[in-house]
């Protein structure tokens, strides 16, 4: 087998099969992943959730993960936010001619490991090869189906006056990591992406507190954008205590140098949860017991004042508007 991807690998013939057999089957094989035109599964009994996401991150390998891990986490976490146990995933690859097969193997390996961690099965896939320069390395699209836990109802429309806003960890690490991977900045800092599959964290949280009103994956646009979305969807105001927001010192330092706001940097393993006040302690205790929730903290609350806005309590004991996200010169981050 050639050690780089050629156009023949995407032509549907012998070499395509060879690629599937030698790379994807090795990692994705399971009884449901057959050679037929579609995967056939039993339908779950309850409601299902479905989500799809495309991944074009540059660079493809970064501290804390790679595009393969990211592509599983993204869709797993989207399903999890709806209280849905991720059951099945499909993945479609668009691969640039000339990509090393060894690299593809490492990406597939990371996908398998991440999928196994939360028990989701990859049941179908597609491979296309694009000419040199038409894509950047590899683009991956994953689509997932999950079964919604009984009695659970989460949505961005359900935040209520008095609810508490929690982040499940420190914020801004993925966005910061990707930024630093670019040579342009000339900054060295020990930052690692938070990229992680969060179904187990969400399940434990919902088992302990089924009344969680909102769960959101704070990916592109970061926690700030998510809070503005929730404020709009639920027609409420959000009040955050700026100094309570968990941000790693390294991320703070980088943001200070580059004039960035951590609230607008992407996360790939950190959720925003909005929960009735009286349930916050049980939820925090539960989150702190999971390895991905150790840094969970209350960052603010929902209010009926200043609807549609996110307002920050500053060190001086006054309130300021959190500026809405603008158009920044950022590289591709997810």
């Amino acid at each position: 087998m050639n050690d780089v991807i050629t156009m023949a690998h995407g032509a549907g013939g012998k070499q395509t099969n060879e690629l599937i057999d030698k790379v994807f089957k090795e990692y994705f094989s399971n009884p449901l992943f057959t050679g037929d035109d579609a995967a056939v599964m039993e339908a779950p009994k309850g409601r299902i959730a479905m989500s799809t996401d495309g991944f074009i991150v540059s660079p493809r390998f970064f501290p804390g993960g790679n595009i393969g891990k990211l592509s599983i986490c993204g869709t797993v976490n989207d399903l999890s936010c709806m209280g849905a146990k991720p059951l099945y995933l499909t993945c479609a690859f668009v691969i640039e001619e000339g990509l090393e097969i060894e690299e593809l193997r490492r990406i597939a390996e990371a996908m398998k490991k991440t999928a196994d961690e939360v028990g989701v099965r990859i049941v179908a896939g597609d491979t296309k090869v694009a000419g040199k320069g038409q894509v950047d390395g590899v683009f991956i699209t994953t689509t997932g189906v999950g079964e919604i836990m009984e009695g659970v109802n989460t949505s961005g429309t359900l935040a209520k006056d008095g609810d508490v806003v929690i982040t499940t960890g420190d914020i801004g690490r993925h966005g910061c990591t990707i930024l630093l991977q670019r040579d342009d900045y000339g900054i060295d800092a020990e930052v690692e992406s938070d990229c992680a599959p969060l179904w187990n964290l969400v399940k434990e949280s919902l088992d302990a507190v089924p009344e969680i009103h909102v769960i959101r994956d704070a990916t592109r646009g970061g926690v700030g954008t998510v809070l503005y979305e929730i404020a709009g969807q639920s027609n409420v105001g959000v009040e955050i205590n700026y100094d309570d927001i968990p941000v790693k010192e390294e991320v703070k330092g980088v943001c200070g140098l580059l004039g960035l706001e951590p609230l607008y940097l992407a996360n790939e393993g950190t959720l925003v949860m909005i929960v009735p006040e009286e349930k916050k302690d049980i939820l925090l205790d539960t989150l702190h017991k999971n390895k991905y929730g150790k840094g969970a903290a209350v960052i603010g609350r929902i209010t009926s004042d200043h609807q549609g806005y996110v307002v920050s309590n500053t060190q001086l004991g006054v309130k300021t508007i959190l500026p809405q996200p603008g158009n920044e010169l950022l590289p591709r981050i997810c």
Partner: protein
Amino acid sequence: MIDDAIKIVKEYKGKKLRIMEVCGTHTHEIFKQGVRQLLSEDIDLISGPGCPVCVTQVDYIDEAVMLALEKNVTICSFGDLLKVPGTKYSLSAARGQGAKVQVVYAPLDAVKYAKEHPDEEVVFLSVGFETTVPSSCIALQLAIKEGVKNFSLLTANKTMPVAYRAMKNACDCYLYPGHVHAIIGTGLCEELRDNEGISGVVAGFTPKELVTAIAVAVTKLQEEKPFFVNCYPRVVKPEGSPAAVKLIYEYMESSDEEWRGLGTMPGSGLKLKDKYSEYDARIKFAIPPMHGHGNPACRCASVLKGEIKPYECPCFGKICTPEHAVGACMVSDEGACSAWYLYGGLDLK
């Protein structure tokens, strides 16, 4: 101690005090931290001309656009400057017309780019105050040392001393920019106090440092005699940074510079010395004099002089927003219009 300072600025009653924060970073932090909400109605904070992007003249943008579009030069610039409108194009719009414009995060990156692209002429837009000029000088130093002949500077550097004198009637007291005085020291502030009756305090950038500096200003202003207090001594030393100053004047000399809104002020800028003219883009590319003009409805000039608040400009928030800036003060995060637009949309108590 911070509580005492807050009490002073909250409870002040009396003659209206006009305090000008000169520095754009101060403007931004004042809004971000909500300093204005603390102040008594009798204290007015005016945003001054200390954001380098905001005071960059239209002609300068036109020069850079001309180099990029007509002389096929690669422009290297800090990102902020790209959206500043010129007469016809901003650099960002010029990019759509085929101009090569690279965003860099340090002037040295522009030298590196020039070295890696020997077939291109590379011009770095040297725009800034005493705080950023030294880094342009370091870039030039490297270009000379390594013989990078396809690198040059288009300068629109500004220095603060003349501006302080020119703006003295716009306010009762300056919040002097901490970073500038970390370079030039505080001798000038004492001179302004003693010879011209200009008052001011050097302020740091944390919420506490800002409120403390304003409280000191408010207290001193009530004594009704000129004063100077350095409220940022952990960073600003009386002698400043002699090494940085030496570096600046090794390569640059004082020049008459046009400031957007304030006009041309003698001795208010820094240009390359004649002996470095081969690195001066204006000479190298024989740039003709520009006669640019901005949108006549834009009132950045009055905003920069503290004559009006940003929201009193007819363009503000209507045709002029951070996404589509008409005036320079809406472009940079540190501009007064941008800060009012981003932070001022809600009456928060």
